[in-house]
């Protein structure tokens, strides 16, 4: 099993945290962080979130991690596609802020 396969199944600590944040922010009480695999699409087909959910999520992420989510629509769409992408985005933004 290579690194990519592992990433698709298990959460990193940050992914776990973000999955929980998604659940708390959007009141998905019937779900558990483990129910949102890192690679599962959050929007449309996957978890079924919509643009207002995304806005709510972006607001929560910004507050929690002290980052700024830029409004570049094309990239935002990628960053918000999955929990894994969100974790990578948050990590990169935090690194950018720290430097």
């Amino acid at each position: 099993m290579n690194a990519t396969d592992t990433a698709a199944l298990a959460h990193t600590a940050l992914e776990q945290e973000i999955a929980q944040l998604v659940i708390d922010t959007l009141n998905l009480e019937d779900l558990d962080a483990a129910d949102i695999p890192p690679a599962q699409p959050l929007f449309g087909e996957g978890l079924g979130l919509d643009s207002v959910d995304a806005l709510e999520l972006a607001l929560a992420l910004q507050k929690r991690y002290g980052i700024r989510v830029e409004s570049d629509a094309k990239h935002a769409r990628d960053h918000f596609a999955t929990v894994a992408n969100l974790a990578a985005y948050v990590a990169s933004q935090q690194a950018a802020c720290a430097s």
Partner: protein
Amino acid sequence: MNGAPAREPHWAAQKERGSFALMWLTALAVRRLGRRPLTPVLYLVVLYFFVFGRRARRNVRQYQSRLAAWSGRDELRPTTRRVFGQFMAFAESLLDRLDVWRGKLGMAQVQLHDPAGVRERLRASVHGGRGQILVCTHLGNLDVCRALAELEERVPLNVLVHNRHVAQFNRLQSAAGDRQLRLLQVSEMDAALMLDLSQRLDRGEWLAIAGDRVPLHDGRRVVVDFLGHAAAFPQGPWLMAGLLRCPVNLMCCLKIDGRYQIRLEPFLDTAEWERGGREATIARWAQRYADRLARLCLLAPQQWFNFYAYWQLADEGGSDADPRRAAR
């Protein structure tokens, strides 16, 4: 816009805004020369606008007849005199706006109707506490509220405007006073804006946003019944309240018997929606708002300053389910 030919331009893009600009020029001249010598000039401009603004005239007539039918009050039915009266009321509101910015119209001349004590909460948030949302309307004279909030109450009030022209007009007019309004030009609700607004609320600032006009570039609208007919209202204020989880109050300023009356009332104590029930909740709030607005129209029937085709439903509805709009 590429709508059907029969469609009228959106309010923000109407040609008749040119006539409004003419009124504004006059109003600014009033500022230099004083109100009295220029009042007849402004009336002439209004007369011109009335005679040649066929579309605006028709829209006012439609509003008046719907208000009359909905309320069952025959005396509100449109006549040429009553339609003209609505144009005159608008001209008067322009003059009053300048007065208030010049400090000639103060809190002492204004009657406050605030049975629930919203004003106390507004004042209290200056000394800590979270801000709230004020949903405003184009019924009556909004600027009197804004100006008094800024000048007399020293309340940090952020006014959200959708349109560049509105922003310019407002700047022009607040320049007539010695203070700048905090105007936030909002073209679309995005993550950065929401964070900014959220931080402002946390600092105790309040947000004022119009609840009765659908912005040009934001497709988030909800169709409600207003005065007995379907009209598109914006989702913006309600979405914002839900996302920012903050209480909503209504504010309007009506001129009744020659005297301004500011009305403040709580509207939503907690803006929350159930998972999966957001659309329905927003539609319910918007409908309740439209119902309240209709009642307020009866207090000052001629101060409805929406001169565009109010009941025209736009066909370009924005779908919230489109992930391409995600996080924008």
